[in-house]
């Protein structure tokens, strides 16, 4: 076992979990619901990136970055649409109804993506309707129901840092960890110092008092979904670059792990999502390298959740639930 590579891998996969967990935790904190479709937004983000990066118009050196931006914008819009269409009318509904709806949205996204990818003539649609040619350089079509990989689209080997003969910090790991830190810092600044951020905290604490201030609850929740889903797009691209296979169910596993990370850290807490994500990534990589059978890795990860909740039912940084007088 090489402890350095465990740390590096743990930090980078943990960073991805943290970015996803931020989306869970913000939506939970402000809209008071568990958005189980969040993981599938990750998958949509990765597919969007995959398709956009293959657009012939984006062949230049900035192409992949523009593809990332397209994925971010599309997922933000998707998040807002999901909130508007599926969740808004359930604001007063019991939380079980919301939860089941979220699971339904999750399956919907997976199946729609499955269908879209296996449809005949998706590339013709892009070409004729949107005027974008999407294919590989040798004109091989990229659509189809087969498993996709995005690794050759996000080549970051030029950023590799060689510490010694045997130890290299991959460029992708550096980028992932850096992106995560930038996101956490920006998000904390946003939530703590902007008017919208303060409004979000007010809504999170007391929705009807926030209404009395003239705060538009719906708009606040929409912004929350947009931010969370934009983060999911970034996480989706990084996750598939790590590398993981891209199929319509790709989002489920990281979605569940990030949810666990959010709960471990204390759901509703931004620093909690960061700590939970990093802890989970580290434990996962450690057990993968120590355990004789890799199949046991996830069992260890889920045990961490159980152990943390035994001692701190509201998570590591979770707030104590105060009894109302």
């Amino acid at each position: 076992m090489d402890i350095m590579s465990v740390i590096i891998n743990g930090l980078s996969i943990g960073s991805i979990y943290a970015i996803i967990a931020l989306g869970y935790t913000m939506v939970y904190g402000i809209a008071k619901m568990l958005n189980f479709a969040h993981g599938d937004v990750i998958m949509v983000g990765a597919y969007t990136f995959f398709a956009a990066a293959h657009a012939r118009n984006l062949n230049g050196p900035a192409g992949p970055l523009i593809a990332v931006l397209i994925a971010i914008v599309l997922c933000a819009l998707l998040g807002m649409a999901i909130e508007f269409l599926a969740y808004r009318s359930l604001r007063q509904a019991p939380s079980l109804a919301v939860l089941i709806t979220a699971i339904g949205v999750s399956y919907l996204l997976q199946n729609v993506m499955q269908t879209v990818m296996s449809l005949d003539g998706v590339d013709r649609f892009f070409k004729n309707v949107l005027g974008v040619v999407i294919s590989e350089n040798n004109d091989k079509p990229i659509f189809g129901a087969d498993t996709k990989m995005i690794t050759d689209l996000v080549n970051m080997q030029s950023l590799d840092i060689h510490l010694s003969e045997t130890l290299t910090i991959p460029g992708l790991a550096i980028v992932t960890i850096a992106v995560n830190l930038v996101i956490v810092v920006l998000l904390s600044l946003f939530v703590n110092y902007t008017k919208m951020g303060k409004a979000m905290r007010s809504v999170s604490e007391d929705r009807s008092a926030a209404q009395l201030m003239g705060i538009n609850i719906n708009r606040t929740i929409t912004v929350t979904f947009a931010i969370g889903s934009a983060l999911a797009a970034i996480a989706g691209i990084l996750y598939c670059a790590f590398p993981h296979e891209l199929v319509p169910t790709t989002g489920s596993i990281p979605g569940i792990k990030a949810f666990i990370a959010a709960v471990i850290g204390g759901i509703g807490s931004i620093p909690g999502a960061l700590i939970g994500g990093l802890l989970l990534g580290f434990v996962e990589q450690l057990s993968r390298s120590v355990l004789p059978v890799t199949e046991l890795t996830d069992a260890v990860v889920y045990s961490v959740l159980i152990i943390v909740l035994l001692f701190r039912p509201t998570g590591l940084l979770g707030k104590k639930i105060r009894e109302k007088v």
Partner: protein
Amino acid sequence: MTESQRRIILSVEDIHVFYGAIHAIKGVSLEVREDEIVTLIGANGAGKSTTLNAITGLLKPRSGKIVYDDKLISGKKASKIVPMGLCLCPEGRRIFQQLTVRENLDMGGYTRSRSEIRESMDEMFERFPRLKEREKQIAGTLSGGEQQMLAMARALMARPKLLMLDEPSMGLAPILVEQIFDIIKELHGSGVTILLVEQNARMALSVADRAYVMETGVITMTGKASALLHNDAVQKAYLGN
């Protein structure tokens, strides 16, 4: 100016409010004229808070009309009503416990511009020097009296024309109750119209111009506050004489 010449700023006409199947407000009508202090008194569960919540848009009346400043506001959302200058300082204070004192005041001015917020913030700190001292403190750590002051200051940050106060004296020591009522008189002196809901009927009737008495969802009595203060039925039911 005599009472009848003053312009009606708020008129509630025969509203009915339901919580699910429960008929909580059964045809309440009341009016508030500019520059008045009007109080709504009654026992626990009479529907006083529900009436205020319906006026401010947190609850939607099933029927009836609410007109504020010559505009129909029943059915509108609170986020549309607050910028019109109609604010509620809710029962139980409901300050944002995890935000700082300053952030609470910021939120009170949510619908106003940055420069207006700054101006009102200075005013509030002048009126409530204790809040200035505790500006950066988390609001949940304030004492009960300070929290009530913060709640009132927060509502005033929206610069209301009509301020509705729901049980501002609840849970406060007698000396603090006096202080809160002094502030109410001061606010009234500076031109704010006030609709006051109180359990402390004696205090409420002594500062108010007019009063409504509410019982199980209906208004049972109304008149000049000074007259109600000496009314036998009111004395028996609400003043403990």
